[in-house]
């Protein structure tokens, strides 16, 4: 590992080069990453705290916040159960098509949210496969909460599974096998052996999944219809206010989502410090195969 206090200067350790590169990175980061963050709060409070409070307290904004929270409360637990089940099946057993199943789980990650939204329209919409049947049964999926929930589930399906699979793969099966050989049942083994071992990765997956559900825009904007006070999630409400030329309102609503994002980053930092170790594959699955292969 390269680290501080090395005696031998490494490539790029020339002081002038080093200072220039750090300067370049800090300046560009300030422009690309920090400035948007500052701009959101600057705009949100540009007309004072009162106007900010009024926008956030507006019934339509309140409803959008509620809808976003309700969606997250449904989607996150479901995707957590799915992530745990998928990770258990994929890492604790050998069966043909394991690798393929892994790719299937990752599909939503590489598909545009717009494509996801359109795809859901062609299942549950009036012109979709199940649309006429649903209409006869008077079940509303598209332009209603179920559509928002389903589209959010698609977009965030891999989030928890992707955190758990590399870690559980690396941890192997020995502990679980020991537990069952000592007479513990499947659930007992899962709850007292597996879950404690992966708790930080699990929590991290849940936090990321939640952030993405609350922020999802493209897929939800297609299936929700953005009906004010009814099917308008918070990100859609941001767009609506923005197009109403209510810039301050849009940024006030956006600042609520920004706080969620900042809490997510802080949670990530705390979780990493909690001994889960660095988990770069959390954001990019780049070295996931490495862990899988190492464990195999």
């Amino acid at each position, binding site marked *: 590992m390269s680290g501080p206090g090395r005696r031998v200067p490494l490539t790029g350790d020339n002081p002038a080069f080093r200072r220039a590169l750090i300067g370049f990175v800090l300046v560009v980061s300030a422009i690309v990453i920090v400035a948007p963050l500052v701009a959101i709060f600057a705009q949100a409070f540009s007309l004072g705290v009162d106007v900010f409070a009024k926008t956030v307290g507006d019934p339509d904004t309140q409803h959008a916040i509620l809808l976003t929270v309700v969606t997250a409360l449904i989607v996150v637990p479901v995707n957590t159960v799915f992530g745990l089940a*998928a990770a258990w099946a994929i890492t604790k*057993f050998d069966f043909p098509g394991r690798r393929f199943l892994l790719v299937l*789980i990752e599909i939503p990650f590489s598909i545009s949210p*717009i494509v996801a939204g359109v795809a859901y329209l062609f299942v549950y919409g009036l012109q979709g496969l199940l649309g006429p049947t649903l209409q006869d049964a008077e079940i509303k999926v598209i332009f209603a909460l179920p559509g928002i929930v389903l589209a959010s589930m698609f977009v965030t399906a891999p989030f928890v599974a992707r955190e758990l699979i590399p870690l559980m793969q690396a941890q192997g099966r020995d502990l679980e096998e020991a537990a069952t050989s000592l007479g513990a049942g499947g659930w007992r083994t899962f709850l007292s052996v597996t879950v404690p071992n992966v708790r930080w990765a699990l929590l991290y997956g849940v936090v990321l999944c939640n952030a993405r559900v609350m922020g999802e825009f493209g897929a939800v904007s297609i299936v929700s219809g953005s009906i004010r006070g009814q099917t308008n999630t918070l990100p859609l409400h941001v767009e609506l206010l923005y197009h109403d030329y209510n810039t301050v309102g849009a940024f006030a609503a956006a600042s609520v989502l920004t706080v969620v994002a900042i809490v997510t980053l802080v949670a990530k*930092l705390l979780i990493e410090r909690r001994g889960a170790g660095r988990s770069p594959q959390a954001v990019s*699955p780049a070295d996931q195969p490495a862990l899988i292969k190492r464990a195999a």
Partner: protein
Amino acid sequence: MSRRVLPGLPLTLGITLLYVSIIVLLPLGALVFKAASLGFYDYWRIVSSPRAVASYRVTVLAALAATAFNLVFGFALAWVLVRYRFPGRRLLDAIVDLPFALPTAVAGIALTALFAPNGWFGMLLAPLGISVAYTITGIMVAMCFTSLPFIVRSVQPVLEDLDTALEEAAQTLGARDGTIFRQVMLPLLTPALLAGVSLAFARSLGEFGAIIFIAGNQPFETEITSLLVFIRLEEFDYPAAAAIASVMLIIAIVMLAVINILQARSLRYMARAR
């Protein structure tokens, strides 16, 4: 295999397959079915219409430019985070993930506010005759923002694991920094860079929320493909939406295959580097 078999395969595999089928495969299948039911002639007419082709061009060009920028900046960022110690390093490391945590629509309006002619950056650029908001440059800026973490987080772990003995050996043999970088380090980092680049490029191709606010959304000029799909839907032109969305789906699947191959190669390189 004489190993003890753990319980729970039918239950967990059952949940997994059921969920993947309903949530992932059913909608994508419905989309493919809808697009396929158009027939070849109609399908081709829609996906090769001048407006659709112009949208592919805008999307791909902006995504290429954004990826090229992020290749340089993301690599520099990963390098600085791994190799140097300076005040604020941990904070910088944490905020690299902001584009992943921040909702795309929020990023979109924030970048628009910055780069609009009366925004903080727009005001500085206007006298130079550079306009970013409502041009293809704006699309590129939005793509840069949303796809930056991919390259940083792909390269960072490989850079951390890079054996410094290789550099020291090269130094002992009299190689200079530039040579060591090009001949020793870059070959080892290339697979991770490529994996990051393909992830960032794929993300940029599909990005929607961050772009539509900052792009002018003028057909043929600043209209991205995902917006065109959205517009066709709003016009109730479902066959066209299905056809163009299916093109995006095919490209996403090709990118997924490329990413998987590159990651497999990246892993072989990492194994060899150890």
